[in-house]
Structure formats: structure tokens, C-alpha cells
């Protein structure tokens, strides 16, 4: 069978894929081109048989289609070219490094302190006085109040616990017998712990040193 330059349009015409303009042009053409018409008539027979018998002719291929699916991994792999994959991996690595370096620094650290070697997380109490070197043994210890219904426990240390007492005020006076035991030239430290009404530890101050010079 001879070849005509228009015969590439046959299938698109039969499958109604041509624009109206192209369709008209091709229709006018095949009235004048026996080669195209003969080929088209033959192809139309094939197409008609396929359209109306296709479900039985292609049973095996239709069944195969279910198992013919490209595996997910292959789909992902073919989504990018190898060059794009390398670029994507490098970008991901850079992002990971940036995130790992920046995120920990952005995090606000919760207060951490030690009580009897146990790590405790919670609120903090700000100690007011004494917090620096003092000339004489102080008579009163003062800290910031955490509100009502809070019980404070003050502890004064030399090398070991010297004195401990509880109060609901945000200050306490040192009893004379304890004051007598504290001498100039020694280093002391103190700490306050706050407990809720139910007796739960809710805040701890840092341990502050106050050397007594005279």
C-alpha cells in the first residue's frame, strides 16, 4: 500500500482527537485520496472490532494490568533524575545540620537545681539578702515571696547543715543560739525551698554563699 503524508491523521480522526478544522481538512482530503481512504476503512474495521470486542480480546492484558502496577519504590525513584536526587539529598543534609544546630539553642531551658543530689526541675526563688559578703552575721534572711499559702523551708549550711526552719513569711530571723554558733571568717551558704499547701515542693532557690568577714 502506498504512503500518503496525511495518513498519520487517520487514527486521530477515527478516535475523534482532531480539532474541528483539522477534521474538516482531513475529510476533504480522503474524498480525493484513495490511499488514505482504503487505509482508514481497514483501520476503522480494526477499531470497531476492538471497541466492541475489546473486553474479550484483551482479557489477559486487562488482568495483567492489576499486577502491572509500578512498585511504589520504583515510582519514587523515577520521580527524580539521579542528578536531582543528589541535589535533594545534599539540600536535606544541609537543612538537617541547620536544624540540629539552631533548634537546641532556641529552646528555653527550664530551671535545674540539686537537692540532696536529686535533680529537681521547677520554679525558682530569688534570694534577697544576704547574697554577698557580710561584715557581721546577719540577723534576718529575706527572699522573694511566691504568694499566699506557701510554706518556706530555709536551710543554712556551714560545711554541713547548721540550721533549718520553716515559715509562711518571705523572711525569717535567726535565733540567737544559732547566731552565736556562726563566726567571722567562715563561709556560710543558705537556700530556701517552697512547698505548696499540700506539701509539694514547688520551687527551690539557688544555694548562695555569704562569707562573714568580721
Amino acid at each position, binding site marked *: 500500500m502506498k504512503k500518503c503524508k496525511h495518513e498519520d491523521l487517520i487514527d486521530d480522526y477515527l478516535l475523534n482527537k482532531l480539532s474541528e478544522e483539522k477534521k474538516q481538512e482531513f475529510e476533504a482530503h480522503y*474524498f480525493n485520496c484513495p490511499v488514505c481512504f482504503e487505509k482508514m*476503512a481497514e483501520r476503522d474495521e480494526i*477499531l470497531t472490532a476492538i471497541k466492541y470486542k475489546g473486553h474479550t480480546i484483551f482479557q489477559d492484558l486487562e488482568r495483567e494490568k492489576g499486577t502491572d502496577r509500578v512498585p511504589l519504590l520504583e515510582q519514587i525513584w523515577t520521580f527524580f533524575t539521579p542528578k536531582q536526587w543528589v541535589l535533594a539529598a545534599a539540600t536535606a543534609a544541609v537543612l538537617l545540620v541547620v536544624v540540629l544546630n539552631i533548634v537546641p539553642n532556641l529552646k528555653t531551658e527550664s530551671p535545674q537545681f540539686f537537692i540532696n543530689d536529686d535533680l529537681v526541675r521547677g520554679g525558682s526563688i530569688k534570694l534577697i539578702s544576704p547574697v554577698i559578703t557580710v561584715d557581721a552575721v546577719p540577723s534576718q534572711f529575706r527572699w522573694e515571696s511566691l504568694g499566699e499559702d506557701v510554706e518556706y523551708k530555709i536551710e543554712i549550711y556551714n560545711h554541713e547543715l547548721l540550721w533549718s526552719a520553716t515559715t509562711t513569711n518571705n523572711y525569717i530571723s535567726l535565733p540567737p543560739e544559732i547566731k552565736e554558733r556562726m563566726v567571722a571568717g567562715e563561709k556560710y551558704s543558705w537556700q530556701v525551698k517552697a512547698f505548696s499547701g499540700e506539701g509539694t515542693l514547688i520551687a527551690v532557690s539557688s544555694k548562695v554563699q555569704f562569707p562573714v568577714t568580721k
Partner: protein
Amino acid sequence: MKKEKSPQFDLDEIIAKYRPIVSFRVKKSLGSHTPDWEDVVNEIMVNVLEKLNKGEFRGDSSIGTFIFTITSRRIIDFIRQKSKVLKYAPEPNPYLSPFENIENKERAELTANAIEKLKPKYKKILYLYYYKELSREEVAQKLNISPRRVSERVNYAQKLLRKMIKK
């Protein structure tokens, strides 16, 4: 004054050559399930013969183009008429079988059997291209061949089917 002579034609030859082409065009435009399509073809052919006899064809264009123009006009008229008549009529069933005559049915069976016997690579290309109606490029991508090769393979499948059906 000398009268311009219209070209002379063998009318039987014209009917034999153009009736299948006109039929194809009419069926394609109106749908082979339209019961009147053969009447339309007959009307066109009669019209063509009348015009030729009256000398209305002067050879300004090819005879093919002359018949194409008559066919196109009649198709447009038929569609206009039908849309007026069928405006309030119930929708016809569009899923009638194209094998309204036994000859067509037998030919379709023959073609279907031949396709089933094709080698898998030709059968698959007909499946993707004609049954699934994928574009040449999509078929090419699926089978990992060039679009040109798709056309060649379809053409070769057609050639094989022609041989098988003629046997």
C-alpha cells in the same frame, strides 16, 4: 457563442468509487446507529448524479471535492432537521451495536479472532493505542520505545491482520 462543455464521467464508476467514501463520512458524522444514514447516502448519491447530468460540475475543483461539498451540506441539513424534530422527542439509545447486519458482525468476529492471535507485542500496542486510547507519546513511554516506533508497530499490526483476514 460556444457553449462550455462540462467534463464527461462514467457515472457507474463514480458511484462505485464514491459511495463507500460518502457512506463512511455519513456514518462517522451521524453515527452508524442512526437508522436513516443509508437514506442520507442514497439522497447524496442521487443529488451528485443529478448535478453531474445537469452539468453543474465544471471541473473547477476535483470531483472528490465536489462530492465532499454536497455530502457536507446534506449532513448539516440532516442534523438541523433532526434537531428540530427531536427537540422534544425522547433520547435514542446510543449504545446500539454497530453490527446491525450479519456481514458486519462476521467481519468484526474475524478481526477480533485475528487480533487475539497476534504476537503479544502487537496485541499490546493495539490494546494501549486503540482500546485504552493512549496517545502515541504515552504508549511510547509505557513500552519504552519512540513515538515513531509506535506508529510503525501499529502499521505492521494492521498489515499482519490484513494478511490473516484475507487467508
